[in-house]
């Protein structure tokens, strides 16, 4: 008796947890393959006709292929900002971890502020306007770099602590210049945390809604999340297309998650542990 009860309780709570976390995704998928009239009922009935492909085409073609443009823009922003992020934050984390200087305290406070404080949006818009980067992809990329530097630096710094300093010494004796020590000896050894950084930050930046909303308004600059937000008001009567759009937005992180599960988990928990 005493052995079966925990099993039953555990089983039930598991089933409940599974349902709670799976049902919404099932719901998304179901509406996305229905016809317009069926989807408007918003229930769990299976569709009479599976319109996966038709709905997909309809969403892609909507507003003159706006979704394709959005994917292109979001991808561009993500790739560029993550590339810059990785290089710059690795450099900062490296020197912060390796060298004692009075700038370390400054850098540490800056990282902490960056992790905690929200950006001052309107002054940032003012500043971007004055340097001609408002509503530009370049501006957006640099903003993403600025806002996500702290987290990436934190990840790198703690990982660099595990790289033996003797390697730096050996490279120094071998005649390596400081930048050669970093790029030829240390950086290749950071691969695991670099992968983590790339994956976690890509998802964060790809999913970012707030910053493009403020800094990248305008039709020609739409991002995936903004498109989805705009479709919400446009498709109040076409739930099938709205949910097809949600489905499409959900797929990239799903794919990344399938391939990089381990690195994501490592990054999320490492970032959580205070540096």
């Amino acid at each position, binding site marked *: 008796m005493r052995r079966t009860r925990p099993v039953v309780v555990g089983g039930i709570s598991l089933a409940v947890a599974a349902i709670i976390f799976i049902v919404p995704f099932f719901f998304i998928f179901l509406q996305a393959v229905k016809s317009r009239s069926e989807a408007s009922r918003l229930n769990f009935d299976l569709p009479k006709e599976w319109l996966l492909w038709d709905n997909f085409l309809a969403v892609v073609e909507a507003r003159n292929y706006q979704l394709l443009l959005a994917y292109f823009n979001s991808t561009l922003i993500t790739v560029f900002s993550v590339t810059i992020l990785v290089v710059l934050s690795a450099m900062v984390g490296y020197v912060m971890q390796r060298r004692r200087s009075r700038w370390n305290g400054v850098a540490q406070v800056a990282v902490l502020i960056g992790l905690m404080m929200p950006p001052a949006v309107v002054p940032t818009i003012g500043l971007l306007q004055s340097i001609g980067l408002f509503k530009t992809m370049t501006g957006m990329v640099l903003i993403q770099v600025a806002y996500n530097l702290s987290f990436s630096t934190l990840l790198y710094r703690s990982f660099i602590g595990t790289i033996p300093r003797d390697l730096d010494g050996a490279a120094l004796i071998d005649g390596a210049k400081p930048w050669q020590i970093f790029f030829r000896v240390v950086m290749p050894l950071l691969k695991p945390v670099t992968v983590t950084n790339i994956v976690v930050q890509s998802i964060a930046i790809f999913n970012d809604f707030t910053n493009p909303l403020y800094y990248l308004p305008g039709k020609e600059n739409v991002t995936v999340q903004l498109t989805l937000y705009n479709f919400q008001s446009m498709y109040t009567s076409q739930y099938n297309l709205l949910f097809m759009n949600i489905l499409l937005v959900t797929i990239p992180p799903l794919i990344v998650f399938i391939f990089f599960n381990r690195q994501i*988990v490592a990054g999320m928990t490492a970032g959580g542990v205070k540096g």
Partner: protein
Amino acid sequence: MVEAQRPKRKSPYPLWFFLPAAIIYGVLFLVPTATSFWYSLTRWDLMTAEYIGLENFRQFFSEPFLVQGLINTLIYAVMTSGLKTIFGLLLAVLLTSNLIARGFLRTVVFFPVLVSTIGIGITFTVMMHPTRGIINVALEAIGIDGPGWLTDPALALFSVALVDLWKGVGLATLIFIAGLAAISPDYYEASRIDGATRMQQFRRITLPLVWPATVTVITLSLIGGLRSFDLIWAMTKGGPGFSSDVVASVIYKQYQAGFYGLSTAGNVILFGLIAVIMVPLTVMFNRREVEQ
């Protein structure tokens, strides 16, 4: 023997490695943050800023709907943080015990963390529809008259907070799982020999030893809750009325309305709010850690 001069050898860790990051971060994050204190004291149209003293702040604290936003922010942050901590720990304990399909369940619980907040927001808005939403339809089937989750002003903020819990609890769970994994099984075996029950083990061993993870979860989710914007914006836009407005959505609304000075004052208030809550909390948590 005295050397005339001691040439300083160059460090192999050059400080200019800080420079590119410092420029981007300084110009695009620190400078606006610093200038926001000035702009919050002005009437501002991005071109000219007219100094008006504390007028923006006076307005902020005298308009009931703006004050409401401040209170809502606190409620939302405390509620989401508390719920994520409790449910995160429970799920973590469940998912570290000996279960079938444990790995699958971890995946399922964690995945929403990675999904677009806007997508989640829209999906739950539809599911929470007062008459056609599947939540109320399901409740009706078992004889309960479901509430207007997002249409009832008394309920809207809590409904959004629940969705936030659904989306964010996976991260808390993950951090707790890492914390639990760091506890040596020896303690449990030793306490079993000492005659501790499962409940006693949880209270006397698990809870104190998982404390660092708890601090992390509370800290992260509080900061996230205080800054929260996109989920609320996707689900209610602060409505009905101003019942689910938070400081971040007020900032956006005032920006849209062209009240840049007022919007920036909201930003400064948010800085203050986060500092007032997080700094003492961090100090307290650190002290407790030192004592241990």
